[in-house]
């Protein structure tokens, strides 16, 4: 129960990110010129110090948009994000550099994370100068060499004048993670950090991310479509469907005892490495819909295998089904 007393690093309350799309289409006999894409449609959660929350869902469920909103690469349409109780938006306005130091992000594509014209030295040096890390040129150089060495570039001295395209994806992603961690962020978003890398190097990157997060007690939102990887790294998971969290709780509790029909579908479709394992795949019909005009009912109802009447009329509220295990479903 000690954990409960710990300070909340991040509180997210009913965050929404809607985009207006211009188009000309026929809908119900009427021609419309605009439609609203609700990429993130009311997400709330909180993170404690050093806690890692895995966010899983299919492509288009809004998980990457959520990640960008959390570090304010985009301003959200509605809702509130608080860091240590302080409004993130105000913090960004008052002291943008402090906000950036508090919130960092690791991106999906390591090959495009750095300016292709810059040398590794410059890539690392500029944010350090910006945030006043290292008092002298020599000290900064030492930090840069340390980071390159840790990224598996040996001897580091030979690499400082290289350009990003000369390195492998794994090396670049390590540099990206270490560079972000250099700022000692209290909170970090990792948006599919290994999905573009080869399997045999993924494990080491995940290991490094996990170790650094534990060392520096960084709270993290780990976005992924790979459930097994998410299970490995996160303390809690949140399952997203069409911009909303449908289920959230302790990792093993949610993944081994899924309550929401969508979570069950997602997990049952996860292929296993063991060819002898019996698989009970729950099938769903239909295509993943787009987050446009989802109607008043549960967004998953049209594809659900056990809908009841109420599902089509009203979006279910979050219920605490077991301690710390929240689900939004009518059929519990």
């Amino acid at each position, binding site marked *: 129960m000690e954990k409960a007393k710990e300070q909340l690093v991040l509180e997210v309350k009913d965050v929404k990110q809607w985009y207006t799309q211009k188009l000309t289409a026929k809908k119900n006999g009427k021609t419309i010129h605009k439609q609203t894409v609700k990429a993130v449609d009311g997400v709330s959660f909180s993170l404690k110090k050093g806690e890692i929350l895995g966010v899983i869902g299919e492509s288009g469920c809004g998980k990457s948009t959520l990640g*960008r909103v959390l*570090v304010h*690469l985009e301003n959200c349409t509605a809702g509130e994000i608080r860091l240590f109780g302080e409004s993130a938006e105000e913090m960004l306005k008052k002291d*943008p*550099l402090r*906000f*950036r*130091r508090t*919130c*960092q*992000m690791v*991106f*999906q*594509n390591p090959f*495009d*994370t*750095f*300016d*292709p*014209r810059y040398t590794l030295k410059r890539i690392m040096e*500029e*944010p350090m100068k*910006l*945030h006043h890390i290292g008092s002298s040129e020599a000290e900064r150089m030492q930090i840069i060499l340390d980071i390159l060495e840790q990224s598996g570039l040996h001897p580091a001295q030979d690499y400082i*004048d290289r350009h990003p395209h000369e390195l492998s994806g794994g090396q670049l992603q390590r540099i*990206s993670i270490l*560079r*972000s961690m250099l700022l000692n962020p209290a909170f970090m978003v990792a948006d599919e950090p290994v999905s573009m890398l080869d399997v045999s190097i993924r494990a080491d990157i995940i290991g490094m991310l996990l170790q650094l997060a534990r060392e520096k007690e960084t709270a993290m939102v780990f976005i992924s479509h790979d459930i097994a990887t998410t299970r490995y790294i996160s303390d809690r998971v949140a399952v997203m469907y069409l911009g909303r969290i449908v289920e959230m709780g302790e990792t093993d509790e949610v993944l081994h005892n899924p309550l929401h029909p969508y979570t069950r579908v997602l997990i049952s479709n996860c292929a296993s490495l063991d060819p002898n394992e019996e698989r009970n795949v729950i099938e769903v019909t239909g295509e993943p819909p787009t987050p446009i005009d989802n109607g008043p009912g549960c967004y998953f109802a049209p594809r659900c295998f056990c809908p009841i009447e109420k599902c089509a009329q009203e979006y279910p509220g979050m219920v605490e089904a077991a301690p710390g295990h929240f689900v939004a479903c009518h059929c519990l």
Partner: protein
Amino acid sequence: MKKKNVIAAKLGRAWKVIRTNAQLRTGLILVLILVALALLAPVISPYDPYKLTNELQAPPGTAGANGAPAHWLGTDKLGHDILSQMLWGARTSLRIGLTAALIAAVVGTLIGGVAGYFGGRVDKVIVEFVNIFVMTPSFFLILIIVAIFGSNMTYVMIVIGLTSWPGNARLMRAQAISLRSRTFIKSCQAMGESKLSIMFRHIIPNGIFPIVANTTMMISGGILTEAGLSFLGLGDPNIISWGQMINAGKPLLTKAPWVALVPGVAVVITVLAFFLIGDGLNRVIAPKMNANK
């Protein structure tokens, strides 16, 4: 030491591109010759370009009087040595072309970069503004301005520059829009770099290449515009330029065709040279264009 190696590698790559691209090579050689001639004008021109010799309308190759140098390209109505005038005129043409194109490049890059990177309302306003400029017939705009402010060469350069930036602005805007969604720009933003700094240090340097190519082509445009103005009698009368020379040769076209023909051919070659460089650069940027040869 290392830095030297990096520079050497870059030069090596540039050399390879020049060697393999015939267009670029031809253009560069022509421009180099032109620049050399313009720079050496005081040394190599046989006569003072303003000097009125006694040989009037002498055809090319006429020997000079009293052991003076020959008029290799002939003389005009007043006895000016055409070769000397050509060499000094090259300075004017190059200066006008370069300055005008440079002004257009800077203005276009800044306006296009701001529109593309900042987007939203700023973008909408700038796009409309650019459209207005595109729709205005720029040559007549230049004519009006010259008519009002007089035909000073500095004005002419600035006016040509300020009317030809919209092409560059459109290019830069497109570049900025595509760069804006790249991860490394988001990464810089997440690292805390300010928007202005990102625009100057990442968006513009990464998107500048097509503008460099376009600007090279615009040098020819500048030279042509100046020639056109002078041809219409609106050039700076105090300065020797190829356009002025063509204008002076116009009435003599049947009696002494070389007076207009020599600067005319020079304008064509110069324009072609810059165009070759610009087009060559374009092909280097978009190698896919000729990959299927």
